[in-house]
Structures are given as C-alpha cells and as structure tokens.
C-alpha cells in the first residue's frame, strides 16, 4: 500500500515535470530547470554525504569546473556543442576531484570538509585574479551550446534537455549506490575500521566516491552556466557549496531522491522569498523550522506522514 502510494506520487511528479512547460509560465519553467540542475549536484553530493559519510564543503568547485570548461572552450576554441562539452567537463571535474581527493580523502570528519572548502576558495581566487584569461570577477558570457547541430531556441526546449540529463544522471547514481561499490562505501560510512578487516583500503573507496561525485557535479556546472548564460568565479565559492549541502539536508540525505526534492524545494523557496525585504532572514528562519520539525528532510517528512496516514486509514 505504502509502496503503491510512493509509486503513484513518483509518477505524478514525473508527469508534472514532463508536461510542465505546456501550462507553467516561463519563469516557473526556468526555476524548474534551475532546480533540476541543482538536483543533479545534490544527488552527486549525497553519494559522498549520505552514502560515504563525508561532508564536502567544496562541491562548488565542480560546478565552477563544469561552468568554466564550457566558458573557456567557447571563448578560446569555439567548441560549443553539448556532446563535446559534457564529456570534457566530466573529465576535467574528475581530474580536479582526483587531485583534491588525494589531499582531502586522507582526512576524515571536519578536516576533510575544511580541505574541500580550501580547494574551492583556492580555485575562486585563481579564477578571479587571472583577469586576462577568465575575465576575473566579470566572468565570461556563455550561450546555450548546441546538441548535434541543434541550437536551443529558449526555455522550454532546453528544459527538456535538462530533464533528460537529470533522469540519466539520477539513474546512474542510483545504480552506483546500489552496486557492489555502493555497498562498499556504505560500509566505509558505517564502520571504516571493519572495512580494513575485509582487506579493503578505505582511502581508495573514499577517493573513488569523491571522483564520481565531482564528475556528476561537473555536469550540473555545464547545464548551469548554459542556463544562466554567465560563468562567474562565485560558483567555485563556499556559498555555492553550502547551498548544495543545504539542499541535501533539506530534502533528506537518508532517502535516495531526498536531495533532488531538496534542490527543487530550495530553488522555489528562494524565488518566493526573494522579493521580500531581507529575504535571507526568512530563508534562514524557514531552514531552522524545517530542521527542527522535519529532521529527516522534506522527503523524510512525507514518508512519515504517509505512514501515519496509512495507519489511520487502516484503523
């Protein structure tokens, strides 16, 4: 029964996502696009946070890596197709993750988080100071890349591309989380000492998880810069990173799709509150309330509510 409720809810949400552009105003479609892009990053981060037990405060650097791969390639080489830019940014973010990971996956807990944060800030500084190449804090203007020669006219069509990439990424991350490797990183999260006694090198699993997580976040960076049309050094920065962390916690890090729900809820909450004077105050307040009353995140709350409602129906 509960399974059927989840399946129905899932299908309804998917139908809304598919048919959305037909009846939603364009700014809602824009927000949905934004939310789905961040959802990829949040699912990728949760591979580390929820499944491996590592809190990264530096995932903004992969958004930045993806964004600047697109921007610099467009500016200097004229490459402007998704079919080249996406694989390229996957490689760039994976390499960046491998490099940063060599330093930070040796550490655990807060030290891991601090080193990831430091890497993000380092890239931010690099990007904003190299004015000649990166345009400094002005950033680089970007247009939506083409897809096999097809150029996207605007919001609706690009939205569908984002939706497809999101579904593919979510499926891929889901499979990884449930694969032998996925079980191994959950074992690392639960008891890293015992993992050593299974003859497995803990650091290797942390590093691989970090690289996978970074690569998927890089894809989000490509889509993001194409949506906003502007690569800015701030995307490397801690504010971006913390936003992704918050989306994960908001949606619920113990449920696979929680982070994706968190990302979309966050984007709409932010857009809704932004016209208010001092909107960060209200966002902060909303966050505190959510954490207090829904410790399992939005999706955790839905789960709890559905279970209770079902019980009431039965009695």
């Amino acid at each position, binding site marked *: 029964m509960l399974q059927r409720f989840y399946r129905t809810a899932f299908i309804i949400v998917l139908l809304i996502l598919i048919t959305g552009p037909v009846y939603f105003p364009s700014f809602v479609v824009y927000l949905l696009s934004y939310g789905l892009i961040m959802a990829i990053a949040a699912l990728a981060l949760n591979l580390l946070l929820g499944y491996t037990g590592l809190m990264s405060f530096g995932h903004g650097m992969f958004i930045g890596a993806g964004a600047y791969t697109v921007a610099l390639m467009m500016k200097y080489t004229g490459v402007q197709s998704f079919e080249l830019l996406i694989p390229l940014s996957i490689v760039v973010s994976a390499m960046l993750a491998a490099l940063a990971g060599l330093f930070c996956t040796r550490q655990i807990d807060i030290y891991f988080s601090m080193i990831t944060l430091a890497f993000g800030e380092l890239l931010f500084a690099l990007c904003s100071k190299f004015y000649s190449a990166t345009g400094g804090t002005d950033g680089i203007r970007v247009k939506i890349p083409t897809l096999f020669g097809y150029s996207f006219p605007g919001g609706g069509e690009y939205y569908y591309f984002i939706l497809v990439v999101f579904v593919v990424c979510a499926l891929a991350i889901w*499979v*990884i989380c*449930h*694969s*032998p*490797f*996925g*079980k*191994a990183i*959950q*074992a690392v*999260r*639960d*008891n890293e*000492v*015992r993992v*050593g*006694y*299974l*003859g*497995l*090198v803990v650091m*290797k*699993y942390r590093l*691989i998880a970090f690289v996978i997580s970074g690569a998927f976040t890089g894809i989000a960076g490509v889509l993001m810069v194409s949506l906003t049309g502007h690569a800015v050094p701030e995307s490397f920065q801690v504010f971006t990173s913390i936003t992704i962390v918050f989306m994960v916690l908001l949606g619920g890090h113990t449920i696979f799709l929680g982070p994706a729900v968190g990302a979309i809820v966050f984007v709409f909450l932010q857009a809704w509150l932004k016209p208010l004077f001092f909107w960060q105050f209200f966002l902060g307040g909303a966050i505190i309330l959510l954490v207090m009353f829904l410790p399992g995140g939005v999706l955790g709350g839905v789960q709890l509510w559905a279970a209770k409602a079902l019980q009431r129906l039965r009695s």
Partner: protein
Amino acid sequence: MGGQSPAAAPILNTAGVFKHFGEVHAVDGVDLHISPGEVLSIVGPNGAGKTTLLKLLSGGHDLDRGQVFFLGEDISRVSLVQRVNRGIVYSFQIPALFENLTAMEAVGLVLLARKKKTVVFFPVMEKFTEIRQEAQEILEMFNVPGNFPANLLPHGQRKLLDAAMAFAYQPKLLLLDEPTSGVSTAEKAKVMDTIMPNIEESNTTTVIVEHDMEIVLRYSRRVIVMDQGKIFAQGIPHEVMEDPKVREVLLGIPASAKS
C-alpha cells in the same frame, strides 16, 4: 586435528613478540606456534594481553619488537589489509558491523571483497545471484536472518554475524576474539555450537580468545594461558586446568588453598 607435534610446519608462528602501551606491557615476549587445522584457545584474566596478541597477528596493531611468520614468511611489517588478503581474518570481541547494511549485504560484501569485485559499479547488488546464494548459505550456517539491518539484531546474533563475516572470507587462519562475550551464560553454548561445527567442517585453523573455561575445555584441543603479557602455561586443556598455578591466575584462588 589438534594434537599435531609442534615440529609440523606451522601455519603461523611468532618469535619474541612485544607490544607496550606506555608503561603497560600488553604483550611481553610471546613465542607462538600454530599448526595447520588446529583449534587453539588463548585464556587469561582481563588485561593479560590476549586481544592485543590477536591484533598483532591480524595486523590491527603494529608490533614493537619480534617477528610474525605466516606460512614461513616474515609478515611482521605487512599491513592489516595485506594480511587479510593472505588469509588472516579477525572477528571482533565487540561486534564491528555495518549497522545500516542487512546481514545479507554485509556477508555479500565480504564475498565480493574476497573475489576482488568491490570496485564494480554495475549492475546492482541484487543481480549477483551467486554471491546472494553463497551469502544465504553462510547466514543459514550461522543462524542469522539475512534481511534485517545489523542494528536491529539482538546481541547474540550480532556476535554470530561478526563471526560469519570473518568466516565468509574463507580464512586460512581465523582469529575469534571472545565469540561469546556479552552473551548470557545460557546462550553461550548455543553461540559456540553454531560457530564451531562450521570451523571443524571446513578444517579452518582457528585461534579463539576466551574467558570462559567451560568453552575452552569443550571446544579446543590446545590451550595457552596468558598472564601479564606472557605465556604462562600451555597444553591440553583439562591437564592445564588441573595446574594449581593456572587456577590461581585464572580464578584468583591461591595455589596454597586446597579446594
């Protein structure tokens, strides 16, 4: 089984192994000789150095001095992970489990680790039917239900799951650290009666650290008594237990007092 002559080529032996923690001489010059296929018990009072010795064998602790040989090869500086890969596997006194994984997933993961298939991203674990079957068999042998996460299992089953995870690796040398600790007296025999037939059937060389004399007398052919980091006595269990000095060390009954 047990009573091989010490001259037989050992599966593992140590020469003057030392481990000090500051002032505490946890293991203070131990020479061990473990024959293939035997079940050896190590007993001793709290703080005798039993667990430390086991961890020196498994690679969980680095030793200060001395040498450990496995199948004739010096493994004193070989890492924990490498020793596991060579077949020395340790089971924890306080169960060290993956709390959110089911028993099935945990044992499955051990099997995958043994087969070097843990860096595999596709397909999902459920599709590995051979692994599932083998894990299912092992869980049945150890009487642990497969579909609950470890944190929902009662203590006795947590102990059994810990042992099953070590056993699933098909170790050449299995190190069981107090398999019945924290288990009620009534259940101790049940736990041992579940674990031991599997060890005997597979003819796995096993070292059991134990507190409970009854268990030592019942389940092992050779016993080593440790006290203050040193080997105090060794031999056939019921003979060793007759020794009044051993009784003094183990039970705190002065040798002079006649019972």
